[in-house]
């Protein structure tokens, strides 16, 4: 056998080793889900496909955690993971699932709304696959995904995506962006079916209040704010006033634009009876201006390039060497959600929703997100 043949065999063998190492990491990402601990308040766990059968067995199906109080009242739906690279909402819903107890009414929670998008990353963004939160008993890991449905599950993208039912033309790849696919299309793509399933859940369960949790980059103007459908703007304004006055949380208000289609606050507000709001916090890892993209940036939000941009007046949030730590982002969400539900209950006392044992901003800052995460059972 010649030297060249041996060399080719060695190179092929090395490439097989590399493919096995990389492939194993990708397969873990495709198939392994972080464990969620059902807290004392969880009375039932359903599947999103229970509300639209076509979703069953697809990568878009996901768990719906239901917390029912002993006293009848209204129903709220809180969901996150519409964009799996926006993690504070995911952690907030998980904190609800693992800590809260509903005493009146019902709260339904979907932590991983676009389950498919948790199984992939975005080419060229160098996102970590996972991040860990330190707890008193060790580290707990969570997936870090992409803004768009995994192209392994939905492909190809059209050149132009025509939103249903508005007919508005959007970017082709946004057919995989769940927050452009509401209220959904039962005969559409996987992502449109996920949007339709969530809308069906709202209709079938008579959800009165819907809250969608997001994050945004510091250079984006819709940040640290509550975006509300016009039916829910009074709740949003009252909640923002109280958060500012009583907890020192500066948060804005935005009215959902009527001419931009596909977003949860617009479409679920128009096509269901629920009052719909979306809350945004600040997540520097989403900013294209960022430097090193790693787990530290996810958790601390500290970045020298974004700091420089802040000094040049290019950001829409106050930003300094303190960064945007995950404890603050989750704390903002827990307080905002709690306040929105409280204001809803005041304005609609016949649909009151009450819950307990949920930390607010100051407590999350003091004790950290990890303090409120339970230890999963060994599996």
């Amino acid at each position, binding site marked *: 056998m010649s030297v*060249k043949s041996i*060399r*080719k065999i060695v*190179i*092929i063998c*090395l*490439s097989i080793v*590399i*493919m096995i190492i*990389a*492939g194993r990491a*990708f*397969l873990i990402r*495709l198939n392994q889900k972080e464990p969620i601990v059902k807290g004392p308040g969880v009375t039932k766990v359903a599947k999103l496909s229970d509300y639209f059968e076509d979703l069953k067995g697809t990568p878009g199906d996901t768990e719906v955690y239901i917390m029912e109080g002993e006293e009848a009242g209204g129903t709220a739906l809180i969901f996150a993971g519409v964009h799996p690279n926006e993690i504070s909402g995911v952690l907030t819903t998980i904190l609800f699932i693992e800590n809260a107890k509903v005493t009146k009414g019902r709260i339904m929670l979907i932590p991983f709304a676009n389950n498919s998008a948790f199984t*992939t990353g975005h080419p060229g963004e160098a996102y970590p696959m996972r991040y860990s939160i330190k707890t008193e008993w060790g580290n707990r890991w969570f997936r870090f995904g992409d803004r768009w449905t995994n192209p*392994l599950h939905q*492909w*190809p993208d059209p050149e132009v995506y025509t939103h249903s039912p508005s007919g508005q033309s959007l970017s082709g790849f946004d057919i995989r962006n769940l927050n452009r696919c509401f209220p959904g299309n039962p005969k559409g793509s996987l992502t449109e079916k996920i949007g339709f399933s969530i809308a069906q859940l709202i209709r079938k369960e008579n959800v009165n209040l819907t809250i969608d949790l997001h994050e945004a980059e510091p250079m984006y103007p819709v940040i640290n704010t509550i975006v509300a459908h016009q039916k829910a703007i009074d709740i949003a304004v009252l909640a923002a006033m109280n958060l500012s006055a009583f907890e020192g949380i500066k948060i804005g208000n935005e009215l959902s634009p009527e001419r931009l289609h596909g977003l949860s606050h617009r479409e679920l507000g128009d096509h269901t009876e629920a009052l719909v709001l979306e809350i945004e916090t600040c997540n520097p890892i989403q900013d294209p201006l960022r430097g090193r993209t790693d787990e530290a940036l996810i958790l601390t939000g500290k970045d020298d390039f974004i700091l420089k941009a802040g000094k040049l007046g290019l950001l829409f949030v106050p930003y300094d060497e303190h960064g945007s730590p995950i404890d603050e982002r989750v704390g903002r969400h827990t307080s905002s959600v709690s306040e929105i539900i409280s204001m809803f209950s005041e304005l609609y006392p016949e649909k009151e929703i009450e819950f307990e044992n949920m930390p607010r901003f100051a407590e999350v800052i003091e004790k950290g997100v990890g303090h409120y995460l339970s230890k999963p059972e060994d599996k």
Partner: protein
Amino acid sequence: MITFIYYLFCAYIVLLLVWNFIETDSLYEEILYVFVFMPFVLRILRVN
């Protein structure tokens, strides 16, 4: 249908790259072809 055609096309690219890998005498080109076909193989296996 279009997805099936896409995977067939990926397989064809892999075959072309493997053929070029076998034929070439240049170490640089061997490494280059291997780097190029690795992601195609992972795509055909639907790993990424």
